[in-house]
């Protein structure tokens, strides 16, 4: 069953002579528990695609459905996108992805608090997630006191806090060295395969594309469906 379904998605920024088409009739499907990569060079439109999925950027045309809820459908959009995001989506980014004035534990707690989970239940969930991700010992540290890898793990813990069906990750390994990047990717696989969340990961980091269940390539606003990684670090040619 498709948890993420994107059909004929077009996004045009600006109008007239200055119009820029970021996406041209893009399509994407992701099943439950699948680890999906969106690959493409800078400026290809992959972040716009992710932003449309996240309900941050409104597409010009097309449909975006997450877990049987269509948030965009040819000009129509769901009324409360922020509520949709907190219930259906988890976010992980390359950097600047933690609230700087909150400790690691509070960064996870705030996501729970936003979703109405408070008190000892929230504390237990945050503690368990941080322990699972190996940063339990660093829970009372502010982000500035954490290494890049630790920050990313805390961000993953926050993304998982409300057990969303879909996790969107934008260049999650770009700021990490190879070893830490692989560690994060291993976590994504574990989240997708063991917790059943669909992880959609935008990247142009060729080192990290091993082990994705599904790969999409974006180039000049066009999205092409690719087969899973061959395991040698190179993606297969996109399907026609």
């Amino acid at each position, binding site marked *: 069953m498709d948890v993420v379904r994107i059909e004929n998605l077009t996004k045009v920024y600006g109008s007239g002579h200055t119009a820029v088409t970021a996406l041209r009739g893009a399509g994407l499907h992701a099943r439950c528990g699948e680890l999906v990569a969106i690959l493409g060079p800078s400026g290809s439109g992959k972040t716009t695609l992710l932003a449309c999925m996240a309900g941050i950027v409104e597409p010009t045309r097309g449909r975006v459905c997450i877990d049987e809820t269509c948030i965009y459908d040819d000009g129509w959009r769901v009324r409360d996108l922020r509520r949709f995001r907190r219930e259906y989506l988890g976010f992980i980014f390359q950097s600047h992805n*933690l609230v700087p004035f909150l400790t690691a534990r509070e960064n996870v707690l705030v*996501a729970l608090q936003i979703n109405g989970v408070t008190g000892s239940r929230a504390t237990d969930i945050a503690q368990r997630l941080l322990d699972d991700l190996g940063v339990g010992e660093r829970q009372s540290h502010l982000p500035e006191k954490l290494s890049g890898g630790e920050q990313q793990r805390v961000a993953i813990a926050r993304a998982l806090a409300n057990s969303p069906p879909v996790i969107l990750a934008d260049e999650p390994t770009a700021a990490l060295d190879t070893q830490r990047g692989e560690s994060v990717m291993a976590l994504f696989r574990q989240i997708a395969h063991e917790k059943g969340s669909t992880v959609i990961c935008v990247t142009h980091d060729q080192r990290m594309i091993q082990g994705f269940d599904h790969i999409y390539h974006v180039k000049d606003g066009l999205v092409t469906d690719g087969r899973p990684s061959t395991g040698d670090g190179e993606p297969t040619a996109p399907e026609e």
Partner: protein
Amino acid sequence: MNLAIRDLQQHWGRFTLSCFGVGLMLTLVLSYAGIYNGFVADALALIRSSGADLWVAQKDTRGPFAEISRLPEDVRYRIAVVPGVSEASPYIFYTVQRPWHSRSLRFVVVGYDLGTGLGGPTHLVAGRGISQGHYEMVADRKLGLYVGDSVHLGLHDYAVVGLTQGMVGTGGDPVAFFSLHDAEEIQFVKDNWSIRNARERAQKAYASALPTQPALAERLAREFADNPDQHTVNAILVRITPGADPKALATTISRWEYFTASTTAEQSKLMLEGSVALARRQTGLFRVLLILIVTVIIAHIIYTMTLEKLKPIALLKLIGAPNRMIAGLVLQQSLALGLTAYLIALGVGHMTYDKWPRRVLVETSDQLLLLVIVVASCVVASVMGLRRALRVEAGAALTG
């Protein structure tokens, strides 16, 4: 978990400094309210403590405090026989500034009749009241004198026998009480040097005018006399008999040709409508301006703090934080700043008011009013920051 407080904890140094600055501004706002109350209290202190029911002053004047009033001292006997009058007592009130040791003493001389006690000191904090007709004085503590001190005024030395507290004149100068005749002497009797000068001037004027203008010579001689008539007072204080109507009695006395009588309430009203009303407008304007400045400063601080948090705010929006959470973050910080500053203002004021040169009387109602104003100012001040925070797009969290 409170986001506003957690953020402030990260910037506690700057936040504390901001609170302190705004707090000092609020201290001024509160002080101006206290200064105005002080004006009122000072203006009414002598009236309230006098024990008089009626004030009789020179015809068509609003004396003795609002303007100069002069009456012959013996008027007291004419007033004392008016039906309904229990006691009539002469009263002298004027300001002097005299050197004393290495400093200058500026104070209000109040002369009162020791027999009736009307207009005299009521609450002593040290020493005793004036018990002999001459050369004793009771001073207010603000004058900086102690019991046993001696002050040279005019021809004589006056011993401080008692101290009052909070007894000041309408201008805020401390009061010194004297017997009526001592007060008259201090005001009118010339010292030896002045007498010598006056005699010389009188002789010269007389000698020069006598050959051709004997009438003028006679008048000049009188003008330069050693001591003019010194039995002049500023008002007659009246205590009425129980059951007498003060207003009716004032009307009766006012009908006499050369007097104006007012009740104590009317005398108080005269004071408040005069110089105090001007002070109220002045301090009121200062308070409004200061509140506006405080609001602008808080707005600026909150706006700057909000600008520094745009990224985290975008992130919070991205992960689904509702607008009320974002608004709460900004508003709570604004209120935290305002309320902390308010507490600082209360503390600083409490510690310093007694050191101000004029009386500062801050009442609970002033403190509560300021609290309401501070809360309202904080809400207004946070509007700019709120608008900025709510305009942040969630997508801004995705950009580096």
